[in-house]
């Protein structure tokens, strides 16, 4: 704190750099950031390029999934229609839901952040541009193949929440369900990559002076969303792992006859599924909080209330999961807790809505296409939110759960709460891409068509549901009062589709008439409207308020002429400033990675590995895996460049080092985020382990003699502790520049880590425990296998560090690789001890009582 305050006081002066700027400074900057040309463009990693591709890919999936919706609406237009049979229809709604939720909604909000967030924070790029590129390629290639299964009659048909046992090997024999699990795998990868970028990006790459209290609401939102991904995605990662293992190896996690429980899947899925809804909605809310002040030409009313509301939604959303399970027969007592939490989450959402209305009220609103989309948002989202409150009323939910009322509700909150704001955002931020606004006329028409089509399609669906129509039915009997309502909904769906098509026409027409500059067409106050090149802003602005462009009207010319921080490139490479997380005082210069084919290769390799594995082509799968692994290795090899340059003067009397190790470094932060994710996945698996305990009717563990005698786990735990100690020795050797000692300790530590795991698993095995026998054994093996995965990564890391040491690129100063790997390694060891304690400790405890 003390250091931060001092450096801040230095900021309160005139523009930090003086004019004129030296010759060639701008040219050098342009050279460093020059985007690759021609077919090499695919190797681009810069956020403005990758962000656009990412948005485009997500919109493509929206169109594809939308077409599926139109097919379904056509089938449902008439009662007892036989246009589409149940087999295809079940695939259609499964794919529609899955693609919309996982391949459109989550990616598109991350994509928007990849594109906008760095500019809004005054950063030149994201901290890990290649990670974003990798996430994009894995997602795009994997997603397209996933969608392609529809053409081979191999698409999943278990519904987008895939409840077992319907989706287990007995009732879904094809590979459709495996493809679903695979498709989700890609989005898990890209979501976690996104969370790392969002958290490290917002906390560490803000413009100097942009303290937490001046951070744009959108950045706050994406920080909260990043945290929600960290705690929200792991349950579904755990669940998909368990289901795939059950399908492939018959470990009975969800099979009641062998001690499993299908409800465990529902708990894990909705532990993710409800936060997921807010992971989709909050970014939209963040965009609204950005657009509303700009359109109303006044600051957001109640900034602090809105920040509190974001935190409120983020945390409260973790306590709602069972409101999707009111009809499963869980005790009334528990249901009421979830009912109360579901109502509590309405409050922060209401706070945001009233903050926006107050802002519009205070301001002089520009009437334009984004404004109309925001109006559509208000009308539909408020109603959708209120039907959500109705669903939180337990007895009412018993009636309308799994009916078209729910279908109507979820489309009201998702289209109303996310698609309308997204389209407002497309129109609002389009000038950043096109240099001009999109067509007002087409935009207004599109909005009118979309909103009226949406209303005609989905408002009657509430009634259809109340008249008793369940969801996910491929057809329905005539004469139940549903016929006319369904026909109307179908007409509405096509109207909505025509509105969306109109937007794409507008985008296509405008792309032929782009202009190079980015005019601040809305007279907005946030940094993304500064003049920018491929390098982002010419100089990184000093921020003094929540709306820097309003606070200092001369900021744009100052920034463009190079009067603010880092007006060129100090090292000749791509750079951005890393600042302290609270007060945003500059700390060091981050050397940003440039164009590379490796992320594309690694992404394609990852996609190929999983896809070929699914269709059981082992050789190509292995090839894909090797490609991915080698590409990642090479890519990481290039990142830890060491202090390649003397400390740099960025202006205003601030001199920054170009290399930082330890807990200041951005890689260290990324690893911490990754470990938080890993720890949460572990908790989900531990939750599963104890869950079987609570539902077990008989003794627990079910067959105590299938647990190994205590020396086995004790030996394994001791080896873990020993390995941690060796790792400490290795670090001491590194401090002393003792290379041989470092290598020896690393090697032995790796072997001890491995043998600890092997002893644990062997102990379990020789006690006669079979993973296919009972859910208890399966969950023990699941925990041990999860640990095994980490040990495998540790072995690769050890090899990597040894290779770096032998190549002479690891020493007492150039040591970020070592520190990051060490963090993961230590975590793995303690995770091992914890897993052993959970399994054998609680078994002993249960045996004692």
């Amino acid at each position, binding site marked *: 704190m003390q250091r931060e305050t001092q450096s801040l006081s230095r900021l309160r002066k005139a523009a930090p750099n003086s004019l004129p700027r030296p010759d060639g400074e701008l040219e050098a900057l342009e050279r460093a950031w020059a985007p690759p040309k021609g077919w090499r463009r695919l190797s681009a990693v810069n956020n403005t390029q990758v962000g656009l591709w990412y948005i485009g890919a997500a919109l493509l999936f929206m169109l594809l999934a939308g077409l599926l919706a139109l097919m379904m609406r056509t089938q449902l237009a*008439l*009662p*007892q*229609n*036989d246009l589409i049979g149940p087999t295809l229809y079940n695939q259609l709604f499964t794919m529609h839901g899955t693609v919309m939720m996982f391949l459109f909604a989550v990616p598109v909000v991350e994509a928007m952040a990849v594109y906008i967030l760095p500019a809004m924070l005054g950063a030149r790029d994201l901290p890990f541009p290649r990670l974003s590129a990798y996430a994009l390629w894995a997602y795009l290639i994997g997603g397209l193949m996933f969608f392609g299964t529809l053409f081979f009659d191999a698409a999943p048909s278990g519904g987008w929440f895939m409840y077992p046992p319907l989706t287990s090997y007995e009732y879904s024999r094809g590979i459709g369900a495996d493809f679903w699990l695979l498709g989700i795998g890609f989005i898990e990868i890209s979501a976690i990559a996104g969370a790392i970028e969002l958290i490290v990006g917002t906390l560490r790459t803000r413009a100097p002076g942009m303290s937490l209290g001046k951070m744009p609401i959108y950045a706050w939102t994406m920080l909260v969303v990043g945290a929600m991904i960290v705690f929200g995605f792991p349950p579904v990662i755990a669940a998909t792992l368990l289901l795939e293992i059950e399908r492939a190896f018959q470990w009975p996690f969800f099979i009641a006859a062998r001690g499993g429980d299908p409800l465990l899947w529902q708990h894990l899925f909705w532990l993710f599924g409800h936060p997921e809804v807010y992971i989709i909605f909050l970014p939209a809310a963040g965009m609204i909080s950005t657009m509303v002040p700009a359109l109303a030409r006044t600051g957001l009313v109640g900034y602090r209330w809105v920040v509190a509301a974001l935190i409120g939604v983020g945390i409260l959303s973790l306590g709602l999961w069972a409101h999707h399970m009111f009809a499963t027969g869980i005790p009334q007592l528990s249901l009421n807790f979830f009912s109360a939490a579901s109502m509590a989450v309405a409050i922060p959402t209401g706070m945001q809505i009233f903050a926006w209305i107050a802002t519009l009220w205070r301001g002089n609103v520009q009437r334009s296409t984004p404004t109309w989309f925001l109006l559509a948002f208000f009308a539909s989202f408020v109603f959708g939110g209120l039907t959500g409150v109705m669903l939180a009323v337990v007895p009412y939910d018993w009636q309308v759960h799994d009916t078209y009322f729910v279908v109507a509700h979820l489309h009201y909150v998702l289209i109303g709460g996310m698609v309308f704001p997204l389209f407002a955002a497309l129109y609002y931020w389009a000038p950043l891409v096109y240099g001009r606004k999109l067509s007002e006329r087409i935009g207004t028409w599109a909005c009118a068509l979309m909103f009226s089509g949406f209303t005609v399609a989905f408002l009657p669906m509430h009634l259809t549901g109340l008249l008793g129509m369940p969801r996910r039915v491929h*057809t329905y*009997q*005539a004469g139940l009062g549903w016929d006319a309502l369904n026909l109307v909904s179908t007409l509405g769906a096509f109207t909505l589709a025509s509105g969306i098509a109109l937007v794409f026409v507008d985008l296509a027409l405008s792309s032929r008439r782009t202009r190079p500059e980015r005019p601040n067409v809305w007279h907005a106050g946030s940094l993304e409207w500064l003049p920018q090149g491929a390098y982002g802003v010419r100089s990184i602005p000093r921020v003094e308020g929540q709306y820097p462009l309003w606070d200092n009207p001369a900021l744009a010319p100052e920034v463009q002429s190079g009067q603010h921080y880092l007006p060129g490139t100090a090292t000749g490479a791509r750079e951005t400033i890393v600042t302290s997380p609270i007060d945003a005082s500059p700390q060091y210069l981050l050397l940003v990675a440039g164009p590379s084919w490796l992320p594309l290769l690694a992404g394609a390799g990852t996609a190929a590995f999983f896809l070929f594995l699914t269709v059981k082509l082992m050789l190509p799968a292995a090839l894909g895996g090797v490609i991915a692994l080698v590409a990642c290795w090479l890519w990481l090899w290039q990142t830890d460049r060491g202090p390649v340059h003397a400390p740099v003067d960025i202006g205003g009397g601030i001199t920054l080092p170009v290399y930082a190790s330890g807990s200041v470094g951005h890689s260290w932060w990324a690893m911490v985020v990754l470990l938080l994710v890993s720890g949460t996945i572990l908790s989900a698996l531990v939750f599963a382990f104890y869950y079987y305990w609570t539902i077990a009717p008989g003794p627990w563990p079910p067959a105590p003699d299938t647990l190994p005698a205590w020396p086995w786990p004790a030996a394994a735990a001791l080896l873990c502790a020993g390995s941690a100690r060796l790792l400490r020795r290795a670090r001491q050797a590194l401090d002393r520049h003792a290379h041989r000692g470092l290598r020896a300790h690393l090697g032995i530590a790796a072997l001890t880590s491995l043998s600890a795991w092997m002893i644990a698993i062997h102990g379990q095995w020789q006690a006669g425990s079979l993973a296919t026998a009972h859910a208890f054994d399966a969950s023990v093996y699941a925990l041990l296998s999860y640990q095994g995965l980490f040990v495998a990564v540790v072995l690769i890391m050890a090899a990597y560090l040894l290779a770096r040491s032998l190549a002479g690129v690891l020493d007492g100063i150039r040591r970020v690789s070592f520190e990051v790997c060490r963090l993961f390694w230590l975590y793995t060891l303690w995770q091992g001890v914890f897993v052993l304690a959970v399994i054998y400790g609680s078994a002993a405890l249960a045996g004692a009582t």
Partner: protein
Amino acid sequence: MRAAMTGAIVAAVVGCGQDAHRGAVLAADARAGQAALYAYDCGVCHRIPGVAGAHGAVGPSLEAFGKRIYVAGRLPNTQAMLVRWIIDPPAIDPLTSMPAIGVDEAHARDMAAYLLSLR
């Protein structure tokens, strides 16, 4: 009882001239027939345009039925013959799989009117 009634109708129809029963002679409502075809679930076995859920493949498709020359391959396709067939198929063809499902005459007439309007 039903057989007697059917016999009477057949007699009446046969008594008419060939041309007379080409056109619709018996009072009937094609729209009511459409509803009746749905209500009696004829679509379980037949494909019938305009009737919800009528995409059966047990019996012949009744698409463009008005253009047919014969009913069940043996009776001339007139409204009266069709009525007779609908009411009691086994009486005409003992080997048929189409059962007499108890359609009353008024409904049968309406059904026939609708089917003959399909062209």
